[in-house]
């Protein structure tokens, strides 16, 4: 899908890179929802991806939401209009933003304008994504516990001249005041470079200390 085996390295096109990134976001979002217990464990099913056992949610409404989201993200990535994707976890009762999972995207404009392909090994990309998924799973050790019922939302930072479908509306950035930030690994397809960062609200215990 994304690559054809060439003589030495794998050739990656814009379409393929967009598919890789959008797929990564889907799996990363599912992993975050599972690890942060936004949905109960029994709502998830185990699948094999990136050489790791990944968890995907089975709820049809969330699945359809994710599929629509990833398709739109893929479209924007191919157009080179997407700057960032943020997964926000909020308290259901108060609406307060508790965590922001920030996926910053840098696009090679030459590829978007001229359509030239790039070369990178698929295995290396998979290894990089694997490292990110491991870090997401291990983030449980330092992120504060979410004791209350939470909901999630996804924000897309795009260029101002992007064509907005009617299923998307303008939104505020849903920032956290005085957050703690932890930078995670990133991955690079030579066309799209993705950096991951999580910012979270200071735990009350930490503030007291």
């Amino acid at each position: 899908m994304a690559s054809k085996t060439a003589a030495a390295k794998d050739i990656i096109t814009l379409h393929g890179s967009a598919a890789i990134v959008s797929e990564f976001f889907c799996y990363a979002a599912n992993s975050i929802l599972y690890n942060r217990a936004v949905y109960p464990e029994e709502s998830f099913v185990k699948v094999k991806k990136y050489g790791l056992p990944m968890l995907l949610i089975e709820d049809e409404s969330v699945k359809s939401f994710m599929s629509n989201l990833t398709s739109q993200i893929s479209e924007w990535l191919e157009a080179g209009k997407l700057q960032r994707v943020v997964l926000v976890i909020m308290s259901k009762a108060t609406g307060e933003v508790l965590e922001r999972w920030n996926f910053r995207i840098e696009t090679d404009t030459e590829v978007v304008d001229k359509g030239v392909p790039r070369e990178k090994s698929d295995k290396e990309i998979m290894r990089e994504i694997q490292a990110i998924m491991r870090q997401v799973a291990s983030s449980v050790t330092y992120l504060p516990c979410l004791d209350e019922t939470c909901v999630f939302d996804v924000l897309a930072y795009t260029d101002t001249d992007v064509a907005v479908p009617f299923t998307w509306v303008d939104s505020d950035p849903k920032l956290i005041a005085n957050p703690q930030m932890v930078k995670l690994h990133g991955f690079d397809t030579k066309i799209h470079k993705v950096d991951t960062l999580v910012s979270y609200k200071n735990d009350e215990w930490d503030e007291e200390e």
Partner: protein
Amino acid sequence: MILRSPPPKRLKSDAGGSPISANASGSGNQLVIYEDSPLPAPAPLQTSNDQSDQHLCTYQCRQMVKADVLDAFSKAEKQVQEYQTQLQTLNANFSEADAERKQLRDNLLYSKQELAAAKGREKMLQEQLLTEINNSQERYTKELQSCHELEVKLQNEMNLRKKAESSAATAEEKAKLLEDKLTQLSGSVDREKKRLNNDIAQLGKEAKLSVSRIGADLERMQCRAQNAETESNLLRSQLEHLKLKFDECLQEKTEVDKKLSSFTSQTASSSDNSVLIKHLQEEVKSYEAEVREARKLKSRHVDAELLKVKLLEENSRRERAESELSKMHELQLSMEMLNNELSSWKSLLNDIPGVSCPDDIVMKVSTLQNEVVQSSMKIEEANTRFKQLEVALEATQLGRQSAETEAALAKEKSEALKTDVKRIEVMLSLVTEEKEQLKAVVNELRKSTSEGSVPGAGATDGTLIQEFESSLAKKENYLKDLENDLSQLKDVNNRLRSEIELLNEKLVDEARRNKSLERDSDRLRSEISLLESKLGHGDYSAANTRVLRMVNTLGVENEAKQTIEALQAELQKAKERLQAVEELKNQSGDAGKLVDSHITGKIAQLKEQIATLEKREERYKTVFADRISVFRRACCELFGYKIVMDEHQRPNGIPVTRFTLQSIYAQNDDEKLEFEYESGNTSILNNGYASQGEIAKQIEIFIRKFNSIPAFTANLTMESFNRRTLY
């Protein structure tokens, strides 16, 4: 040569003079030795030979001559001894000079070695200096470039700072203008409030009047109702009385009828009977009239009860109208407040540039806030950069000090070389002095050898002298070479000194630039950390970036439905209120008009909201329908089955989803598969087609055994395709 004849004796004075003269001549000519072999006599000897020829001496003369010769010989011997001692001293001096020459030669060699070492060191130093110069030149060029870039950046930052300051000033001015406008608006709002309060007071008075009118009407109605009640009571009592009478009349009528029947059976007829009959008929008529009156009374009673009901209804309406009047007051106030706010905001919107609708205000305020924040941050950044530049200056000073120390070290080295050079010069001067002394000695020796006549010693002395002269010449050559080397070294030292000074200056500049670069790197690191923190925080530039979120369609649909239902309920309530108000309006006159206008306005707004929500719902439905149809068509084309989804309910009340699949290669409409889906589990249902032999076998194998519905459907598709195409 012995004079053959002594010279003639002269007077004592003359004789004294002659031998003196002879002695003088002899002494002047030194010792004249008799030799048989002719010798090249000097010119005065020829004259003396002439004189000897003249002078023929006697024995006395010979003795005298012998004595004279002996004296001269002794003197010559003494002179020879002196000369020998002088030679010895000269030889000693020569040996000393030779030793000194050797020493000098050793010193020369040593100095040569030192010179060579110094040359080597100088070469090394030169090479080091050259490499350092090259490196410093490279660094210099790089730092020049970086300086240019930094200067450009500084200018840009200064411009940005100025722009930020100007924008901050404009924003402040705008804020001040807005504040002024706000104060003006608040004044106008207060005035309008007062006016509205007056209007409300008037409306209240009017409402009171209307209420009093309604109360009066109600009282009238109450009086009417009371009258109707009293009438109804009276009528009731009359009705009861009439009922009683009616019953009595009926009883009498039955008795009369009985009597009449008895009378008709009897043949006797009398006038009394006819009178009775007439009387009875009259009574029946009166009773009938009373019955009619009773019926009328009954109908009136019914009317009275109806009137009571109406009265109660009107009372309830009155109460409702009063409550709604109070609510209407509140609604009026709120509507007026809203209208005032709307008008004020509209006027504000007109005043604020770049804003056309209320939604733009939020964006405008957010953009202004962002601009203010950005400008303040830029100002802070510029301040940090200035502080960093100051730190860089201090760092360059430290670098300059280090460069100065290095220059001092180089100077010390050069001074050491200078001292070496001076030492060598001193040695050279000493050597030249000795050379001159030796030259003088050699010249003296030459002179002495030229006056005396000791051929053997003179020959050896001559060779020695020649050797000494050759060695001296060599030494002179060496000295000349050393002097040339010294001059070259001096030139080199001067050049090195000038280069060192230049390098020092360059080092100072480069140290400064290094420090500025370090500062820039620190600043860039801090900027990077700031930017990373901003990115992590989620900040963005509204000029380049837009934040979008996907509308959760399922939630929106539910919310839309809920809002629609709520709005519909509100609409019904409003309609009921409107009806009540209309009834009140019919009863009261003018007071209802005002109420109507506000209610209609609110109702219009609610209707508009409902219309927009309904449009949105229809749009969603059309979009979903399109999507679903596209999905269904795609599924049919991709997998080869038309899928129909239905919702069913089991007998136990559990809802299940039923899917009916029909292959596109099916030969008739009966070839349908039915599946039931419940909470993630799909099961096949038995129907006519599924219970056929081959299909049942396939179901047994693929679904029951291997638990794979896709394999079953794929196999069925292939079989039906083959049947269609091949058969």
